[in-house]
């Protein structure tokens, strides 16, 4: 198959209704902020629903969807390979995402996300214990 010429798709690709993004270029490794713009984590990986390995995809079947932002141990998996068992994955459901720009903004507060448990643990057990830890710098 010779070098395929880039067909400038004049044929009927409908004008994209919503925001078009490339997962790696626009979402991966971007900062996730919660509702109050407090950083929660960085998008270490994404989970896609509706792709079955090894199975033939019938033409016209519904496209896969992004189901979650993965973080925590997932960064190590992505860097050094290997797979964390689904149970141990730390995920932020994609439906909590309110906006995707140069950051991924969530529609909820970071306090009740399990992606923020390390921050809460360090805050409660270490930093919060040091005098002056709980009020604003003057």
């Amino acid at each position: 198959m010779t070098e395929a010429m880039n067909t400038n798709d004049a044929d009927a690709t409908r004008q994209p209704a919503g925001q078009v993004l490339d997962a790696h270029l626009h979402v991966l490794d971007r900062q996730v902020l919660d509702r109050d713009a407090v950083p929660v984590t960085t998008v270490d990986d994404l989970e896609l629903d509706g792709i079955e390995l090894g199975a033939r995809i019938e033409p016209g079947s519904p496209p896969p969807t992004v189901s979650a932002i993965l973080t925590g141990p997932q960064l190590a998996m992505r860097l050094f390979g290997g797979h964390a068992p689904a149970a141990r994955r730390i995920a932020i459901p994609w439906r909590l995402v309110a906006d995707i720009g140069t950051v991924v903004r969530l529609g909820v507060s970071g306090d009740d996300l399990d992606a923020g448990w390390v921050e809460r643990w360090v805050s409660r057990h270490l930093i919060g214990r040091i005098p002056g830890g709980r009020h604003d710098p003057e």
Partner: protein
Amino acid sequence: MKRLFAVALGVLTAIGGFVDIGDLVTNAVVGSRFGLGLAWVVLVGVVGICVYAQMAGRVAAVSGRATFEIIRERLGPRAGLANLAASFLINLLTVTAEIGGVALALQLATSVDPGWWIPVAAFGVWIVIWRAKFELLENVTGMLGLALIVFAVALFMLSPDWGQLAGQALQPGPPAEEPVATYWFYAVALFGAAMTPYEVFFFSSGAIEERWTVEDLAKSRLNVLVGFPLGGLLSIAIAGCAAVVLLPRAIDVTSLSQVVLPVAEAGGKVALAFVIVGILAATFGAALETTLSSGYTLAQYFGWSWGKFRRPARAARFHLAMIIGILIAVGILATGVDPILVTEYSVVFSAVALPLTYLPILIIANDREYMGDHVNGRAMNVVGQVYLVIILAAALTAIPLLIVTGAGA
């Protein structure tokens, strides 16, 4: 009038903030061996830090994203992690050198062994980061750092043979008696001292700490384009003083006490008091900046909550990382290692890490998705790419030169 004060404050802080233990030691060492022969490197480095800081500041102000967030986003996690490891270790080396610098400056004032001052200095750095507001920390150390202008005053008071100094400065290549490798080793070290990456991490994160908007860009451009060059001139004055007093006596600088000898020679006790206060403020300010930078780099890579404007409990891992950083620095100093030696290595490794932190900023400053129409102009891109080549050259030659010359022996 208030605006004028704010502008002046910004510029003065940039001057005071520019010079740290790396600039003090490296310029004195170079001055005591090459006179002003390497002054051109400081100029190249100052223009470079102006371009780099100005771009990083603009990116932070317009897109709200700090440098290391962008480094991870643009380089990807693997290259980002290598960059993080290099930057964090160099930051650690620099924090160690700065805290050591504070201890040495206190020794100059009290003749008490620096070992006693190290825990005091480290605690001082932590308590200021823990409690003081960002602007307060930045302005006080920046202003007091201005006392270093006494180096320029001392240079004039020494009434040197300006013709000879100019002759050294305009002499293109390495002087005859010095081996070429040593000349270029110190050129790279001086370049690394002028273009330290931590200054940009701090500068861009500071833009977010102080919630800069597009309007603040004009102010930041002034701070950078006036403050840093004056800081560069101060560095050249340090080298000049060493050239006039130490070079003729064949005194190779190996300790901070030698760096201040020319100032005492020129202006006696008053000048010496100024320079000691200036060094204390500059090294303490730089210790704050490098400690914060190590916190910023880690937090921005992993996506933690960070920032001095938040109470510590709301940026817990950020503060924890800094505390650990300070403790490691104290541990290194406790081994009795000579802070001056640590400083010389920290500036060389800064040169090595530069390309990895400079390239992503140059790219993002051209990305409309981040910058809208505040993207780089043609001129800035030309200068930006010229510096990319210079920075790569310095980075690639730094380690070989370090080995060949045995750290400039």
